[in-house]
């Protein structure tokens, strides 16, 4: 039993080492793109406050906001202080970057993980049901709905959900984290407010899992082990869940890794529509205000999430399929 764990630990260690140059390159690219942005950080900072601002004030602000030097110099300065644990100050939000992220990350993680788990579980269930009788009514309905949902942008689904559940049926709140008049964050009100955004995000991810599971399981149903199991007279339920699902799930594990970037993008849109206090609005602000420290920290976070998703997929793959050796990944 010790062997797989040691292999997994070694794999994680190798990935962690590889992440360092990847993150450095990704942030350098981000600084380059932000430097080419047409937005004027001073204009973004001032908003409508500085109607009568004099040129002298504008110049001082430009200097203080620190967008001087080439983007490589800025990147290097940022990298050194970030390596020392100082993520810098977000001038656009008038807060330290660490605080901006600390206040918001939890809500984004809550939203994403609930949506992801719902999408995986529901997707697996629907995929198995559809694969059981390919070409049947259930299969046809599930498959065509999945293709339709795959084409629907998350923000459109979000607006539809608000229209239906908040305006028409009036059963769920249209946005925010808690009831407007109430100050305290209670579990009940968070769950009520989480339902729509998490539901929409889950549904936008659902079709991928449904289609992959359906394909994997229905392929497996035609393979030798399943035929052998059937020949031995095992119950259909055991065959489906014990044999076909297990081998059919392998491609889904890979999918988990590749869906993480989509999940993050979807979450940005969904958070914006539902005014969910996660990192989405901070990301938008950071981008339009070319707030380098905040933007860099958020870029690192998303890159880390993607790398972690891939690592998780590889680890699970190795566990699910004993033929795969973690040391060879």
């Amino acid at each position, binding site marked *: 039993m010790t062997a797989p764990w040691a292999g997994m630990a070694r794999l994680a260690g190798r990935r962690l080492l590889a992440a360092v140059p990847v993150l450095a390159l990704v942030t350098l690219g981000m600084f380059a793109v932000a430097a080419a942005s047409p937005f004027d950080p001073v204009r973004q900072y001032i908003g409508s406050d500085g109607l009568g601002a004099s040129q002298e*004030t504008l110049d001082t602000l430009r200097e203080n906001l620190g967008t001087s030097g080439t983007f490589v110099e800025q990147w290097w300065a940022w990298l050194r202080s970030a390596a020392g644990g100082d993520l810098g100050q977000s001038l656009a939000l008038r807060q330290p970057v660490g605080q901006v992220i600390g206040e918001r990350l939890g809500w984004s993680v809550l939203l994403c993980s609930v949506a992801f788990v719902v999408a995986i579980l529901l997707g697996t269930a629907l995929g198995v049901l559809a694969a059981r009788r390919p070409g049947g009514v259930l299969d046809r309905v599930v498959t065509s709905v999945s293709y339709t949902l795959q084409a629907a942008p998350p923000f459109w689904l979000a607006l539809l959900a608000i229209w239906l559940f908040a305006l028409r049926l009036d059963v769920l709140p249209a946005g925010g984290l808690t009831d407007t008049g109430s100050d305290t964050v209670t579990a009940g009100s968070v769950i009520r407010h989480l339902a729509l955004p998490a539901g929409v995000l889950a549904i936008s991810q659902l079709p991928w899992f449904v289609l992959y599971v359906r394909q994997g399981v229905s392929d497996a149903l035609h393979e030798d082990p399943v035929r052998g199991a059937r020949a031995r007279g095992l119950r259909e339920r055991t065959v489906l869940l014990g044999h076909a699902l297990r081998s059919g799930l392998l491609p889904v594990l890979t999918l988990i890794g590749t869906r993480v970037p989509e999940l993050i993008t979807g979450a940005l849109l969904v958070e914006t529509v539902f005014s969910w206090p996660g990192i989405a609005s901070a990301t938008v602000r950071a981008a339009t205000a070319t707030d380098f420290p905040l933007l860099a920290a958020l870029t690192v976070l998303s890159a880390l999430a993607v790398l972690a998703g891939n690592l998780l997929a590889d680890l699970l793959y190795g566990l699910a399929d004993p033929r795969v050796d973690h040391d060879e990944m």
Partner: protein
Amino acid sequence: MTARITARTWTGIAATAVTAALLTATACSAPGEEGGGDGGYDELVVGIANEPETLSPLLGYGKDGNSKIFDGLLRHDEDLELQPALATALPEISDDGLTYTYALREGVEFSDGTPFTARDVVFTYETILDEDTNNPAKDDLAAVESVRAEGDHTVVFTLAYPYAPFAERTVLPIASADAAGGQDVNTGPYNTEPIGTGPYVVTGWTRGERLTFEANPGYWGGEPEVRRLTMAVIPDDDVRATRLRSGDLDAAVLPPNLANSFAGEEGLVTHTAESADFRAVTLPTGHPVTGDQDIRLALDLAVDRELMVDSILEGAGHAAYGPVPTASPWFAEGTERPHDPDAARALLDEAGWVTGEDGVRVKDGRRAEFTLWYPAGDRLRQEHALAYASDARDIGIDATVESGSWEVIEGRLAQDAVLSGGGNPADPDFDLYGLLHSELAGDGWNNMGHYDNPAVDEQLETGRRSGDPAEREAAYEAVQRELAEDPGYTFLTHIDHVYVMADHWDGVTTQIEPHDHGLGHGPWWNVEDWRIRS
């Protein structure tokens, strides 16, 4: 197709039902707070469109007063008259107009219990004026040379030049030197967890969602009756209206057409606040067409301001003939201009602008054409710009309307016209000096049209420096008459700000409001003085 839609809806319901089923039980345990219940309306939930960037006065929060969390040395009353707040009286001004002395109220405490003294005043003003403080509105205090404390309860400002409206600037909120000192002014915690002397204290701020306040029990002006104040940040007008209608909000700022849809709803009243918030077209002096005085005068006669008020603003506004609103006591009577396109055409004919083949006038081989910009995404300015271009076209002047971000527009201000906006009602100097003084032409976002009129410059100086109210009034009247004769901006409208709110309180009024009316303005400008109707 039908099967697909049904199934999709079903999937949607199923997914949410999973979560919904989990929560119905727990949801009931959430405290049922709905706008104060039936008995006491000691809670106010307001929907606002924009949230402040910061709550620190050191970075510009509440600079025009009504900050809820803080007090200024002075404050504005309903008629925008100055009244003492943290000062015990209006300032003593030296004869040369250079020294302002404020006696401070004793026994006032910040909400953390530390006493308020002259040290806090000096700290606030000096920090704002510090070069390293990123306060975009610091030019408001450009006249201040130094500020010093004399003992604990006297503050003396020394100005670099006589600046008659200086007292108006001292509505600026006073920060606590103990709480705000010793941290990074630009990004420190004071930006989100401010400590002030004001009627309310901040109890929570979820950015992009809401700000909550609770009454300050030790407020020197008496504890407010409205004990809880929530500002819900809802940028979308329709969503704000929907949440007001559902009873989620007690009050909201709304565009006029949405506010009209609440007319006759029981328990809701509409408050319309006049404002100094103008929309005007800059006519750059350096451009051969817009710099031509005849063209300027003709455009000024050709625009149909009343129609703009009726159609674009749905009646919630007033025709503007200059930065000073017609309702203001500073307005120069008789500078209103009629809508008279025939006179405009006659004027241009006489000046030698001859109508060409395509209907656009030409003089000395130059077509009467220019470009008019508006900031992309600003629907109100877009409609003003299009109406303006259409009125100009009627008299043979071709204004091409274009939209762009401010980054694009900024570089073209010297040549192209722009649909600009602004307005601060507290003193005529605030708008007129920055808009019209030739020294400030193209200086940052001052005098964007590069207006240059020596007679106006002279009167602006007199108005700024003179301590004599009658002399100031004469100066600003002269400025407005000069502007009418050489209209380097075509002023179009002053916009009313419209609010719809529940009717449970007495003492609800509105002030004349400035351009920027986020949190402090609106009927709740003095919510601390409201009385709950029994």
